[in-house]
């Protein structure tokens, strides 16, 4: 049955996934370990006041202090690094699982089996989502464990929301990569399109408050949609639902398109 696709996706890449999770947890640990030295440092806050507006906007330094646990992690982890890591993992997995496999000629045999292509794409999407979730949970566990140790004093509810938003955004990009690869036989596009959207979305989301002409485009940025500074402010639940809905629509579009095109064979 087509569900075998999911099993293959997870089992064939479990070592890479474990490596990602360990890497993310290690990075979180490193960042958290520095926290005690800047905790409550007034000089640090004063230093940051003089940073250029654009930089502050990009890293979410505008609202609140960087020397509280929530402020610090918002800037050091949730403004760029964690989304970046999770999105790279997601795009890698999403592009590999269809476009990559097709490129390697490994889809010819399974798709000649009595399984619908669209179903295969959906099961692959589930696999990508599970991998993204695993990475996000690794970050969650690392932060939660380190919270009492380094004195981050985080709101548990906000942390959970931040991880949910991270997961949803990761899944969005992973499914864009998968859907593009399903719609057209191009691994390059499967990587390039979500990467371009991600980069643009990040810049628009970070800088829209500074550039009037960018402001209308903020709706296009998944990062803006879920909200910045999640540990301090929580996330926008409507934004999260919108991002999730976009991810589903993108996936369905890819699944619809894949049935209609020729498969690339070796």
């Amino acid at each position, binding site marked *: 049955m087509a569900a075998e696709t999911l099993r293959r996706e997870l089992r064939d890449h479990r070592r890479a996934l474990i490596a990602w999770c360990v890497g993310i947890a290690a990075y979180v640990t490193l960042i958290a370990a520095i926290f005690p030295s800047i905790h409550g440092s007034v000089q640090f806050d004063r230093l940051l006041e003089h940073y250029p507006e654009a930089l502050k906007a990009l890293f979410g330094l505008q609202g609140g202090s960087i020397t509280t646990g929530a402020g610090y992690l918002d800037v050091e982890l949730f403004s760029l690094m964690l989304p970046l890591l999770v999105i790279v993992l997601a795009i890698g997995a999403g592009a590999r699982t269809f476009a990559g496999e097709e490129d390697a000629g490994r889809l010819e045999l399974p798709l000649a089996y009595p399984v619908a292509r669209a179903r295969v794409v959906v099961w692959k999407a589930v696999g990508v989502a599970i991998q993204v979730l695993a990475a996000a949970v690794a970050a969650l566990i690392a932060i939660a464990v380190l919270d009492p140790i380094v004195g981050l004093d985080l709101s548990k509810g906000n942390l959970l929301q931040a991880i949910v938003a991270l997961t949803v955004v990761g899944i969005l990009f992973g499914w864009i990569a998968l859907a593009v690869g399903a719609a057209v036989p191009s691994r390059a596009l499967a990587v390039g399109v979500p990467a371009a959207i991600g980069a643009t979305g990040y810049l628009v989301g970070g800088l829209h408050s500074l550039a009037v002409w960018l402001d209308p485009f903020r709706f296009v940025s998944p990062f803006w949609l879920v909200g910045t500074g999640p540990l301090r402010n929580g996330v926008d639940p409507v934004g999260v639902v919108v991002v999730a809905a976009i991810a589903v629509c993108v996936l369905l579009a890819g699944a619809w398109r894949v049935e209609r095109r020729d498969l690339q*064979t070796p």
Partner: protein
Amino acid sequence: MPDVAAIETFGLEKTYPGNVQALQSLDLEVRPGEVFGYLGPNGAGKSTTIRLLLGLIRPTGGRSSIFGIDTQRDGVRARRRTGYLPGDLRLTDRLTGREQLASLARLRGGVDDELRDALCARLDVVLDRPIRQLSRGNRQKLGLVQAFMHRPDVVVLDEPSSGLDPLLQNEFRLLLRETASAGASVFLSSHSLDEVQHVADRIGIIRTGRLVDVDSVEKLRERALRHVTVTLRDPLADDLFAGIDGVRVESRDEHVVRLTAPEGAMDAVVKRAASHPLLDFVSQPADLEEIFLELYRENEDGR
């Protein structure tokens, strides 16, 4: 109950982007319980036909069916009764043969483990080493097992014998004949008449996207010319092979005679050659191009 064709195409056409017409209005029929050889030179459209049947690519005209089930509109149902071995088999290298077959069995559903194991034993399949360590022939064997393990009613094989050693090729031929005797059909493509003639019932010849001829093996064999090179010990002036029906002498010097002869003339050729002391006698099967050219010309002449 009328016999539904195992495979049937109706004006099947495929034009690739860039106006490359790979297949022109193909009308083909494979009967139940038949081994059908699909012959053609490289680039003739064999793999295109096969990929259309398996729903891997979409036709630009016409349609095809397997046991009456439209392969485009109802592809999943059609593929349930079909086994397939691609021309360029790619497996998941990291897995062992055993794991790969188990995975494919789960993907398909309803596979008889006993049959799978029996096929593995029969073809001497290497099961417990990672596929990336296996030779092409051993990978091909895995491909054969997965094509037959679910007892399909139609088996589609794209150039299956390449990579198999002669012993295996024999076992493979027996497997095909048994499959046909049990009522299933086999559709196998090849560019070698030799590979196919011992196992097929009928042969279809495709050339530049057109089905040029469909005939039983005996008839085709009769038309296929052998290239014979006879090396005589003593120089000979007269035309040794004059007068044998169908024989054409290509070149002749004192010791070496090169000629082409149909199968039916071989007896006379050998006996004539044997009437003189020989140093060497070489007979090569006909170049497929020649048969195609022969058939193509015949077609155009309307003969």
